[in-house]
């Protein structure tokens, strides 16, 4: 985009409206977050009643074996499911956007189903499937598998993979396929062309898809609850249980910790990105 201002640059009331709307949207997004952060320091068991400053909820979080193990289970599942869905999702996005093959239409349709299916339905589907699939593995192949972290991870991949594909594919569609040909013409192998030309350009899409997958995994309660087994209590499921027993600022403290952690992650990746592009290497 050119830097010079043009006649279409919003001005007057339009500009004022756009600015105001922008700030209001941010205010809307952050109001509950702000409240959440503030009340995580409240010395009262009830969220919403201010009871003076305290750090006791963070201490409780640090001490609670339950909360910590739920957090680590969640992170573990989120990490694995994100990595797997990013890899598989990017591959299939490439296949759909750059290749022709038999069964493409069927695949294309199948890809959108997990996005539009209601949570509960998918949860019930997977519950029925896993109990029978594991039984089948047991009786036919003699492999004994128990539900838990494994089945939850498999399920999370099943619903985030489509989102990754769709996001990456949109990015690929916006990228001239001549770039890849140019790379091949310049002696790159297929892999090198992907590695040095395609991937850097669709990286925002891959990152976006990955973040989406991560968010979905870290947020999911319904599906997790249905396919869980021993050791499979994730943070949202734990929080859901806590809420049933009363919403205490402990939940806020947990959320704040996760919020800060994810923000640090993003800031770090932005810094990395900047330093990399600054040095001017490919």
């Amino acid at each position, binding site marked *: 985009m050119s830097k010079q201002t043009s006649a279409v640059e919003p001005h007057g009331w339009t500009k004022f409206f756009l600015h105001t709307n922008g700030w209001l949207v941010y205010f809307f997004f952050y109001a509950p977050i702000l409240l959440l952060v503030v009340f995580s320091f409240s010395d009262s068991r009830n969220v919403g009643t201010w009871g003076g400053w305290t750090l006791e909820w963070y201490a409780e979080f640090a001490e609670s074996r339950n909360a910590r193990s739920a957090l680590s289970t969640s992170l573990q599942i989120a990490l694995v499911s994100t990595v797997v869905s990013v890899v598989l999702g990017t591959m299939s996005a490439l296949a759909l956007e750059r290749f022709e093959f038999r069964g493409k239409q069927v695949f294309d349709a199948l890809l959108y189903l997990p996005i539009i299916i209601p949570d509960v339905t998918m949860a019930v589907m997977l519950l029925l499937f896993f*109990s029978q699939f594991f039984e*089948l593995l047991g009786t036919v192949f003699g492999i004994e598998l*128990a539900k838990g972290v494994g089945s939850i991870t498999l399920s999370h991949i099943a619903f985030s993979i489509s989102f990754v594909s769709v996001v990456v594919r949109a990015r690929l569609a916006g990228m001239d396929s001549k770039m890849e040909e140019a790379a091949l013409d310049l002696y790159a192998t297929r892999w090198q062309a992907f590695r040095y030309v395609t991937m850097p350009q669709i990286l925002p899409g891959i990152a976006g898809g990955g973040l989406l997958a991560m968010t979905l995994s870290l947020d999911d309660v319904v599906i997790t*609850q249905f396919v*869980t*087994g*021993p050791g499979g209590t994730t943070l949202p499921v734990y929080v859901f249980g806590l809420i*049933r027993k009363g*919403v205490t600022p402990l939940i806020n403290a947990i959320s704040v910790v996760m919020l800060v952690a994810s923000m640090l992650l993003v800031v770090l990746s932005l810094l990395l990105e900047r330093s990399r592009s600054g040095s001017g290497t490919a």
Partner: protein
Amino acid sequence: MNTKHWLRLLAGLFTLTLLAAACGSDDDESSGGADCEVGEIDGDLAMYNWAEYIDEEQLQEFADEYGISYSLDSYDSNEAMQPIVSEGGSGFDVIVPSDYMVSVMISAGSLMLLNYDAIPNSSNLSDDFSNLYFDPEGGYSLPYQWGTTGIAVNTAVVGTDFPRSWGIIFDPAISGQFDGQIQLLNDPRETMGAALKYLGYSMNTTSEDELAEATELVAATAGRLAAFNTDSADEFLTSGETVIAHGYSGDMFVQFLETDNPGDYVYFVPEEGGTRWIDNFAIAHDAPHPCTAHTFINWMYGADQGAALTNWNYYNTPNAAAVAGLDEDLLDFVNDPAVLAGGVDSLEALEDTGDFEVNYSDAFVEAKG
């Protein structure tokens, strides 16, 4: 590999799966109890319990004592837990289903017959809990904790001069001035049950006429409510969102004690009667470590451990030997005779009504509008 081969393999797997589905659910695998010695351990403990219903330290103590490790996972409704266990392969040992769910799970073959020889402490069970409707011989379950469902009132707003009746919720003549500050549980059986009780019927009725009458009553009340809510009934009351609340005894007691002036709140089961519910220890039909499970239940049934459980979660204990070990302030709340306005006999347990469950669910949705 050839595409066709893949498809054939998938089709084969799929057919097998369906077959397994068709056969698997009819199997009754719960017949034989486990052959365990007292204190026998056959692996780590995997417990599946309601959230925040047991102190982790207590579990750790058990684990340390027997030199094993444990896992604790939680659910928030019987209905969420049941399919997990019933479908098999859950990997859980000890579970804590509520009364009606015990009978459902027995019928579904999801529970293991208990071997009482391995649970000598079961003699501590209070006599009030013999011959329970949902498990007449107690073959599959041992009560864990129990409580009631009733009404909590903020007396600072409502005053103390009110009838101890469901009418305080359902009769506008009594509570009309508090419209928009009343809450009912978001649970078809509890809420329809409360209305049925007020009308003088059984909360386990299978009469469509009686249910229709109750539906009308709830529908008429819906407009006067702040919310239908289960999770936060206690908090709404103490935060001032509501002044008359429908909720569970233990939740309410815990919440009262959290406030600066617990004396402002009162919990009671109306004179028409209310729900008594019992949560129970049970062992999953395919528990991987049945002996550890038995040993754990036996250990929990000791006097000290039973008291520790109640002192942590504020619900009533079915363990007669544990009563002596309960905290003083707890006894004031829990054992106050005024809590049960209609006496113990007015309490009723929610039973599984079989096919009629669907009617309850639909009636509730209809009543909410």
